[in-house]
């Protein structure tokens, strides 16, 4: 009898954060999540930039950066109205997990995934991200409860009607359920309309009802399908933690300065109860999944919940992205997964390749992430294919040809110029799209592509301040320092003087003028002592000037502000090695790598520290990891040449690396 085929259940919890999860797990409040920590593999997962959910969840589902999948924002032009609509599945330019798995003859499902509407026709089932939106008032006497589910929000289509009966309307959320989250409901309900707090409190409760209803609908749909349908892969996306956090994280303890005592007393438990609610749902999902399923939980980013919360509200019309943390949650549990282990160095791009490996499918070479082989008890043999994009089997084409919304938007622009269409609201969507694309290029080491995209954007919004900042950053990365300074001149100094000084400091650093750089960074520190990254930059300049005490203080201050500052940890490691404490250096560099794996310089620093503690083979491995990321890293080649010559007695390899180093720096040159 053959063993049942392993299945994969991928659960997305938008904005879930270990800083919230860990204390709740330790207090026994999240027993199901505890199983992942104690019986599975768990750790941080690094997000991508820009930190926008539709882009991130599509990268999770495809294993690709956003410039490949082309979901570049929350909205897109609606080709028939000239206005905008939520981004759709037809805009995605590559296959998601459910397409790939379905194409390969397995059954796949997706529930509520971002940008999944209209439902794609796969071998399996899809409930789109429009299905649960309550667009009308509740009328229990009507067959569709008074609000018609959108057409094409469920595949197969014949499931739309039965599935629609599982929906939960905000009006169905009972008072007792709200009271699980909010204290003082009696008092709130006693407020009169004339009371200044009436509107704000009722709006908050209305928001919570709506989000709970939406979340419950997703869960009802997912659990029904898990029981009734055969599946090999199922992806379920819950956005409630993020959306509830944007409304209520400012009330989470400790009380923030702008929050009144009264509101703090009312709403302080909302986030905790939200997480506990998700643990309840998780338990049900784990039971339904059964022993042959690997369950993966992933969040696209974290969410500040402590002293790092920005001043003011997290509301989506205020400064939502400032509340996002760069590290989310990744946890796996199930057959073939290691037990009680920590996971290091994962990014969102690794989720799709890992799912494919768990299902015994090859990873595509055109994916930007890789399978996390360290989670397997017995890592499978590596398999790869060039791409899945040419697979023609399976996913049936849509009944109507997919419209490219960006082409449609340009057509509307033409009609507008001809005088047949009025104001075109889609222009802003195009501007945001280009800005997001430029950010993707910048964050993935492609500043030239970022500049080209910004040039297109500049034609439309020449005075956009944010655009100038991005452009300055791109020019800096390209080493075009004079041009960078010219752009900085166009940014009003009064708008954000510390930012201007930060740039001047980076330009001076690039020119090797550490004295000017230090002066600039100290001005930033004086004006904005808690500015993200400033103490790390100061530490790096102090290191270059060999001011080791000052460097150590700066890095420690950076870590006081944010214990997950990978660059500060790496810098501290360098300081420790200078202080002849290589053991502490090794620990600091390893902590840094655990947070951000893709930094070649950190691996080189680790290698140097390992060599000093006598772990020469591990040191060589660290240098090779650095070269795997950056093949032309001169210092890595030089260190390997010395190691192979003196400690590892391999003159051939020593000669190879020596020659490589000489090619890179010139015979008598110093490395960069």
């Amino acid at each position: 009898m053959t063993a049942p085929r392993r299945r994969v259940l991928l659960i997305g919890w938008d904005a879930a954060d270990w800083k919230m999860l860990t204390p709740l797990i330790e207090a026994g409040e999240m027993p199901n999540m505890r199983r992942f920590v104690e019986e599975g593999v768990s750790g941080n997962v690094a997000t991508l930039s820009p930190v926008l959910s539709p882009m991130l969840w599509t990268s999770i589902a495809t294993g690709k950066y956003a410039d490949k999948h082309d979901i570049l924002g929350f909205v897109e032009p609606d080709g028939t109205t000239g206005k905008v609509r939520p981004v759709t599945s037809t805009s995605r330019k590559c296959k998601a997990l459910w397409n790939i798995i379905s194409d390969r003859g397995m059954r796949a499902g997706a529930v509520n995934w971002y940008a999944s509407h209209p439902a794609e026709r796969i071998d399996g089932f899809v409930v789109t991200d429009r299905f649960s939106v309550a667009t009308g008032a509740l009328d229990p006497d009507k067959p569709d409860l008074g609000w018609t589910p959108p057409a094409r929000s469920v595949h197969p289509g014949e499931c739309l009607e039965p599935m629609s009966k599982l929906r939960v309307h905000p009006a169905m959320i009972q008072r007792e359920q709200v009271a699980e989250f909010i204290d003082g409901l009696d008092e709130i309900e006693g407020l009169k309309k004339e009371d200044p707090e009436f509107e704000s409190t009722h709006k908050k409760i209305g928001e919570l009802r709506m989000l709970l209803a939406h979340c419950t609908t997703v869960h009802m749909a997912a659990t029904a399908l898990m029981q009734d349908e055969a599946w090999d892969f199922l992806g379920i996306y819950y956005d409630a933690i993020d959306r509830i956090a944007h409304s209520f994280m400012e009330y989470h303890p400790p009380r923030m300065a702008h929050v009144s005592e009264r509101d703090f007393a009312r709403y302080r438990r909302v986030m905790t109860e939200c997480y506990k609610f998700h643990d309840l749902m998780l338990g049900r999902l784990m039971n339904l999944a059964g022993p042959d399923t690997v369950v993966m939980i992933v969040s696209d980013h974290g969410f500040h919940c402590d002293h790092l919360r920005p001043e003011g509200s997290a509301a989506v019309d205020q400064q939502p992205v400032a509340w996002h943390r760069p590290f989310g949650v990744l946890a796996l549990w199930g057959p073939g997964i290691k037990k009680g282990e920590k996971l290091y160095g994962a990014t969102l791009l690794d989720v799709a390749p890992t799912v494919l490996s768990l299902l015994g499918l090859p990873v595509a070479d055109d994916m930007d992430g890789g399978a996390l082989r360290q989670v397997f008890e017995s890592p499978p043999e590596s398999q790869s294919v060039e791409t899945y994009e040419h697979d023609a089997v399976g996913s049936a084409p849509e009944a109507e040809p997919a419209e490219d919304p960006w082409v449609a938007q340009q057509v509307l622009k033409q009609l507008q110029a001809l005088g047949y269409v009025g104001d075109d609201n889609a222009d802003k969507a195009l501007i945001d799209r280009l800005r997001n694309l430029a950010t993707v290029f910048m964050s993935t080491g492609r500043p030239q592509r970022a500049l080209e995209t910004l040039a297109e954007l500049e034609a439309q919004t020449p005075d956009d301040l944010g655009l100038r900042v991005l452009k300055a950053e791109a020019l800096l990365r390209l080493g075009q320092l004079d041009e960078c300074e010219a752009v900085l001149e166009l940014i009003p100094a009064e708008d954000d003087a510390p930012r201007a000084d930060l740039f001047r400091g980076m330009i001076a650093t690039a020119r090797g003028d550490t004295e000017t750089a230090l002066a600039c960074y100290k001005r930033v520190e004086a004006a904005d002592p808690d500015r993200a990254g400033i103490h790390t930059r100061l530490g790096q300049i102090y290191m270059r000037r060999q001011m080791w005490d000052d460097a150590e203080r700066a890095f420690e201050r950076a870590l006081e502000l944010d214990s997950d500052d990978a660059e500060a940890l790496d810098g501290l490691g360098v300081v420790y090695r200078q202080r002849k404490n290589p053991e502490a250096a090794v620990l600091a560099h390893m902590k840094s790598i655990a947070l951000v794996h893709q930094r070649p310089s950190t691996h080189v620093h680790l290698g140097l520290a390992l060599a000093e503690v006598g772990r020469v083979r591990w040191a060589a491995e660290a240098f090779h990891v650095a070269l795997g990321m950056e093949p032309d890293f001169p210092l890595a080649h030089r260190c390997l040449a010395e190691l192979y010559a003196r400690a590892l007695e391999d003159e051939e390899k020593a000669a190879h690396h020596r020659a490589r180093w000489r090619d890179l720096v010139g015979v008598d040159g110093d490395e960069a």
Partner: protein
Amino acid sequence: MSEPITIVSGLPRTGTSLMMQILERAGVAPVTDALRAPDADNPRGYFEDARVMTLGREAAWLSEAAPGRALKVVAVHLQHLPESASYRVIYMRRNLDEVMASQQAMLARLGKTGANLPPDALRRGLEQADASAQRLVAAKGWDSLVVHHDKLLGDPETEVARVLGFIRSAADPAGVAACVDSTLHRQRSSRDDHDASGPSI
């Protein structure tokens, strides 16, 4: 139920203004605000009402102003027609190369910039918009008639007779067809893509 509104639709520059003139001669009064004066692109006028561009926000005027009359509603605005009225649609189609050339000529005259797209992408976009509008008309179940621009100019009396039959008018086809001036057929193309841009209604 009040009299149906005769909607003249299609992509811009497919002969929608010409069809409005034909209907006027056939006794179906146009709904127009005369805001856009005749010019080199439409020497006899546009026969438009600017309120069509904001139908999505405000449509109450339609039920007062339009029953029994003709209204030009270009393809992209069709989906804003309110359900409360009844319609019959005359959908104009034209060779897309001619449409693109005509739109380009008009843009040049206006001194405006159109789509930032290579020609083949623009063509695809216009095809999609055209097909989408025709699917909408079919889905709504409106009575409809497709009229091809080149056939109208090539054999005006026959095509006008079809239109008069569609709107149940007793007007004389020859008399109405006299308003069709084939010398106004500019940007003529040799390419025949009557059926290339999506299903017929």
